[in-house]
């Protein structure tokens, strides 16, 4: 009887393995030739001048062994301020044009300085450095080896953060209590608002770049919540005494669409996924990326 029970148990286990656990094998795959793309990562915001920068890189063959960025150096990169007329037209102020230079300075770690373009006044005359102004539009022009590229973005009116609170505590596997943060704000009555939510905290205090904040960028729209009072709880847990530097970025819809596609494109494997090409706001041949105008509002919270 015991024997039968053991056998049937083993058999059922085998069946379960067959049924529930798919198996995986390596296989040789040869994909077609790749057309290199110029990849543009550009930002302008109203609060953090050192975070107004442009990263230029190039795409590579899928099976390339280089897992780092392939920087594009020696580009001519300019940003021009202007006005948006509300109906798709722009009036650019050519006197405002700022040339961004590749960051070959000691203040930027060498590991990321190539292909990273800053307003050099950040180091010589910080108050005069490029800084976004709410309500203004910005034109990014790039010239790489004689090829021109451009992108436009705007800084919309930022939505204020009413308060930032802690709650929804949970205990993790090491028995520590962690706390989640909730952002309270009032969505404007106008439909079509979109936001990102970023936060830095003790662990990331010394880090640099938008990519050092939360990776998901958690973009959201008010399609389902127009005009409501929003209380948005983020899943990440924080320890007591953590200081959270929280930013809410109000963005235009095309910037939202780009980062939404980024979120879909970055985790894009498995049977139920479909290939997602990153959307682009960059004009020019064989280019992708986004010029992200972000109107920031900010709060700090110390977890107690």
């Amino acid at each position, binding site marked *: 009887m015991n024997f039968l029970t053991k056998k049937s*148990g083993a058999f*059922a286990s085998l*069946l*379960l393995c067959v*049924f*529930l656990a*798919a*198996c*995986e094998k*390596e*296989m040789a795959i040869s*994909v*077609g*030739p*790749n*057309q290199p793309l110029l*990849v543009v*990562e550009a930002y302008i915001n109203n609060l953090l001048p050192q975070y107004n920068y442009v990263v230029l890189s*190039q*795409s*590579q*063959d*899928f099976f390339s062994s280089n*897992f*780092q960025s392939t920087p594009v150096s020696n580009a001519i990169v300019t940003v021009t301020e202007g006005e948006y007329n509300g109906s798709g037209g722009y009036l650019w102020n050519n006197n405002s044009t700022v040339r961004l230079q590749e960051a070959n300075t000691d203040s930027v*770690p060498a*590991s990321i300085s190539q292909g990273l373009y800053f307003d050099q006044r950040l180091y010589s005359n910080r108050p005069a450095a490029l800084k976004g102004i709410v309500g203004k539009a910005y034109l990014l022009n790039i010239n790489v080896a004689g090829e021109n590229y451009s992108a436009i973005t705007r800084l919309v009116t930022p939505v204020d953060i009413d308060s930032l609170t802690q709650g929804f505590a*949970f205990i993790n*596997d090491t028995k520590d209590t962690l706390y989640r943060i*909730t952002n309270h704000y009032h969505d404007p009555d106008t*439909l079509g608002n979109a936001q990102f939510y970023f936060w830095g905290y003790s662990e*990331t*205090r010394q*880090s*640099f*770049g*938008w*990519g*050092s904040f939360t*990776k998901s960028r958690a973009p959201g729209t008010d*399609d389902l919540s*127009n005009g409501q009072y*929003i209380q*948005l*709880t983020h*899943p990440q*847990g924080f320890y007591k005494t953590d200081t959270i530097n929280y930013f809410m970025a109000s963005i235009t*819809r*095309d910037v939202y669409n780009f980062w*939404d596609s980024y979120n*879909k494109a970055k985790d*894009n494997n498995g*049977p*139920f996924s*479909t*290939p*997602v*090409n990153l959307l682009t706001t960059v004009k020019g041949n064989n280019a*992708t*990326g986004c010029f992200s105008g972000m109107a920031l509002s900010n709060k700090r919270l110390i977890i107690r």
Partner: protein
Amino acid sequence: MHRPIFITAATRLFFTSACIMLHFFCAGQTASVQLHIIDSIGQPIAFASIHFNQKKCSADSLGHASILLAAGNYLLNVSAVNHYTFMSQVQVAADTILVIKLQGRQSLLGNITVYNSRNITRNQLAVQSISSAQLKKLPVILGEVDPLKTITLLPGIKSGGEASAGIYVRGGGPDQNLVLLDGIPVYNPSHLFGFFSIFNGDAVNEIEVIKGGIPAEYGGRLSSVIAINSKEANMDSVKGSGGIGFISSRFSLEVPLINNKLSLIISARRTYIDQIAKAVAKKRIGGNGYHFYDANAKLNYRVNKNNALQLTYYSGQDFFDFSRTEDGRTRLFNTNWGNMLAGISWKQQITKSLQQQTAAVYNDFALDSRFAFNTTSFVFTSALKDKQLKSDWMYTPQNWLRFKWGGQYTWHQFNPGAGAVTTGIQAFKSQVANRYAKEAAAYASAAVNITPALNLIAGIRYSYFNQVGPTQQVLYGSDGVPTGRIDSFKKGQSIARYHYPEPRLSLLYKLSLNSSIKASYTRTIQYLHLATTSGATFPSDLWLPSSKLIQPAKAQQWAAGFFSNLRNNAYELNVEVYYKTLTNQIEFKPGALLLLNQNLEGEMIFGKGKAYGIEFFIQKKKGRLTGWIGYTLSRAERTFNQLNNGKSFAYRYDRLHDLSVVANYPLSKKWEAAAVFVYGTGNAITLPTGRFTYNLGLDAEDQSVLLTNINQYSNVNAYRMPAYHRLDVAFIYTPKPMSKKKFKSSWNFSVYNIYNRYNPYFIYLDANEEQRSIAGKKVFLFPVVPSVTWNFRW
């Protein structure tokens, strides 16, 4: 003067065919002859008396009879009360199925013998059927007989791959098949994410697929009609059958409620993989699990010899529960989905040449899903309900002339998605407004024998569709931003109205007694569209009506074929070619959000497609070894302005080569063997050709660069997955085949994928940034899978 001569000739042709069909091959061999006796409206005739010379048997209450005969010549005599006697000389050669249609006493027509294979004389291209008996003789995976999976062994009908619910007929999409259970449309025909169909093999009598030359009485889908006829109950005695398999058990009970008047069959099936899992690994499995059940019921009432009523009911549900808490974070996923179908039909023989069938059907497909992780949860529901009335008439004034006409009206109610997203204490609710539509069609067709050799069926179907209120539609701008305006429609107010003629034409020319050629033209219109995120029709199936933006999908198909029976009907050979064009095909933009999206139509793109191919089918029907070989050489492609730079690309299920070999062989009286081999060109998929980094950051603590790798794609569906092939075998053991006892049982020992081919379910490219390595990987579901099923009946 021609007509009477033709009637005589036609009748002789039938009887001659009967003799040829039963031609005696092997002296001294015994053969099983199965007979199905039916009347002019297809209803079984109970208790017909059957004589093969002096050997006698009777049909049961379902008109079925079976007799073992030594090979030889026989005079077949079939008689039944109020029907003309059928007599014919037959030669019994091998196992054979005969369908004999007896004419009522009032009829002036002679009796007609219809053979299982009517490929030569039936003016219908691209039709194939598989009986319940054939289904049960084939190898099965995990012991489950699956009619829908089995039809993919026929040429021109392809499955999406292992564990895929989709059926792709001649380059069409999975939503382009009109799946009917006793005439009731089925919107989601699969269980377990596509692993199994909802059709319990015990409850199915026959499955028939029409791939082209679709008759005028069918419409609403572009590519095919898949008609499943469920089993009818025995009229005179209680009978039962069932099976116990690895993952499920099933049971059927046939009860005569009023002898020879009223009968009921109930079939039920339930999986117990959840219970096994809990018994074996309770701690690990916890409350997680999956199961499905389905139940079929059919009530037959013979009102009198000219009227019959039939009530069909089906209910099936899938349940999936998963929850896990890890590192203090909870993940939860509960979902259930299923169909409920009900229909009543009335068949009537009004006069000797006029008959009608009127039916009222109702179906309800519903999906309810709940997802939760951390502080965020989603609730999503979707449903589609249909109420349909239809009436079909047939008038046969002469043997050489037949008219069909009728109409149908369907009221559709779409619930394209209601849901809520909760993050912490905030709830975002979305109710995509219900949509309603009226769909109607009227048709007429005439079948005429222009000459004894030439038959023409000309038909026209006129379909009408009107999406109506009450509903509200949120209006979006071209940039995807809500405009803040809402269009409101009153109850019954027309929103989008379409109507099209759908001509159908079929020609048959008999080259000889054993061969014919056929040609057909079909235009079909489809007003309903399936929006799904993946190959698996789970968990976000949304059926949407045609609207202002979504135009009805249209297809035209031209087909021609050569049909021949060889070597005294031992072999059946069919060769068909087809060319199909598709317009208003729908795709979703890459990365489209389908759940709770008020702007679903804004996520769609529209294109066209075409498919063409040649299909070969050769079947051996006599002798110890029986089976078939089906081969399709075909192409299917799509063109969308917004995809692939507007260039045509291979449809995902474009399959240049598709081969199926099916064989049955009786080893002895107790043992029978069966084997299935399938081979198909791999699916066309899109793989990245390049990659780049984005979202630059620097981790100051360890001075590491923070980057996210993003894939770059070039041509759509430019990569071919490895070819799919496998061999399955089955051995059916009947311990007491000659037993006189009522209770009979048999064992089905199946081995799926016997040479353990790793057919990929999906493949992906795994870029490991830490190890700086890239590898192609394939995930496969079913290595070699043995199974045992015990089947019984009494």
